[in-house]
């Protein structure tokens, strides 16, 4: 591979320049890129607005350069992005490493797109989703957002045909108009959005300012926007990824009636409570369908909803047949199946031998 001493010498169109030079040299490198007609730049280097003082002034100069030249700029202080759909690795995150002895297992063709200001969190979400077999369109860390912000990246994911479900990790939104337009559009086209908003406490807000120079803002205002556009708010990383797993493997339910099926009476009660506390219905099933289900279960099973097929119901096929009956009935819109909770790992993945 040829290595050029200046971008001006390359003599061919460049779509994306990934800038990794020390902070003080970034502006000069960007000027060269813009002069050479580079369309976009991604600045991995740190040491700008998150440091304050002169370093913040350098970031202002970067923002000014983007406006003046039209070259779009992401970062600085960004961990970049990764796309499984486009096979673009514009990041140094170790989570995108390819290990020949660990094949990528994909459970579904529907893809998630992740927009985070923090690269550490964005790529952590990707890493966990990957372990569950969820496919990825893009994961992008917006960093300090001198020009391109989380709102604009979110907007890209909303219109992107390879992104089916969007996960957002937000410290504070700078490009508010773009964010709101994207939120409205996502609601219109029915693309699900899962959001985690941090910087809700005084200490968290202070940390956001020094991390990606974000203004965390007023939590109530963010929550009002999330509610208005039907975002799914999750403040737990595992929960957010699990929701993404459900949304990429199942169609959206048409209503709020849920059947809880289990092999354990205790798990059934717990599941019913959890569903009800989310504001969903766990309706008592009709006598007709209860009579059908009771034929599949031992006398000590339960059929009203929750449906306790008991341990025997697993081996006799009662669980699967109950699911089939409910599937063709018009009594519920979704089913929660709670199997054993005693596994030590919660989720086991197997590798092809």
């Amino acid at each position, binding site marked *: 591979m040829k*290595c050029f001493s*200046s971008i001006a010498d390359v003599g061919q169109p*460049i779509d994306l*320049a990934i800038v990794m030079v020390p902070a003080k040299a970034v502006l000069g490198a960007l000027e060269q890129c813009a002069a050479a007609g580079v369309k976009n730049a991604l600045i991995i280097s740190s040491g700008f607005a998150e440091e304050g003082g002169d370093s913040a002034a350098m970031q202002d100069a970067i923002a000014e350069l983007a406006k003046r030249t039209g070259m779009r700029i992401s970062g600085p202080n960004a961990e*970049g992005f990764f796309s499984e759909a486009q096979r*673009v690795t514009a*990041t140094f995150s170790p989570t*995108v490493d390819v290990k020949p002895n660990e094949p990528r297992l994909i459970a579904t063709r529907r893809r998630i797109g992740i927009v985070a200001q923090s690269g550490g969190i964005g790529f952590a979400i990707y890493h966990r989703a990957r372990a569950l077999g969820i496919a990825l369109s893009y994961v992008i860390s917006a960093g300090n957002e001198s020009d391109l912000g989380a709102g604009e990246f979110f907007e890209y994911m909303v219109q992107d045909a390879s992104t089916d479900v969007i996960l957002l990790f937000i410290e504070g939104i700078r490009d508010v108009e773009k964010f709101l337009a994207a939120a409205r559009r996502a609601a219109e086209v029915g693309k699900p959005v899962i959001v985690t908003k941090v910087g809700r406490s005084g200490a968290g807000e202070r940390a956001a300012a020094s991390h990606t120079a974000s203004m965390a803002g007023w939590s109530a205002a963010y929550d009002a926007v999330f509610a208005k556009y039907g975002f799914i708010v999750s403040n737990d990383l595992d929960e957010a990824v699990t929701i993404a797993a459900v949304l990429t493997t199942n169609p959206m339910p048409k209503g709020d009636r849920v059947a809880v099926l289990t092999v354990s009476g205790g798990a059934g009660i717990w599941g019913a409570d959890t569903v009800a506390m989310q504001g969903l219905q766990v309706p008592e099933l009709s006598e007709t369908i209860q009579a059908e289900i009771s034929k599949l279960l031992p006398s000590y099973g339960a059929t009203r909803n929750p449906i306790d097929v008991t341990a025997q119901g697993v081996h006799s096929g009662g669980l699967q047949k109950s699911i089939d009956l409910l599937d063709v009935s018009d009594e519920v819109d979704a089913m929660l199946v709670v199997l054993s909770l005693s596994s030590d790992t919660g989720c086991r993945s197997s590798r092809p031998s």
Partner: protein
Amino acid sequence: MSHPLDSFFAPESIALIGASRDQDKYRAGLLSMLRKNEFPGKIIRSIPIMAISMA
């Protein structure tokens, strides 16, 4: 359908600015990750003169 950020998110050519062999593992790692993940476009490496003189 095209979008102004397609050239950012689905670039046909990428330039690595400041990606020399003797630099830290992050920068060297990025080039190898691009290759390992089978980037289908062109990769160009560049060491801007400005960067070297100011570093």
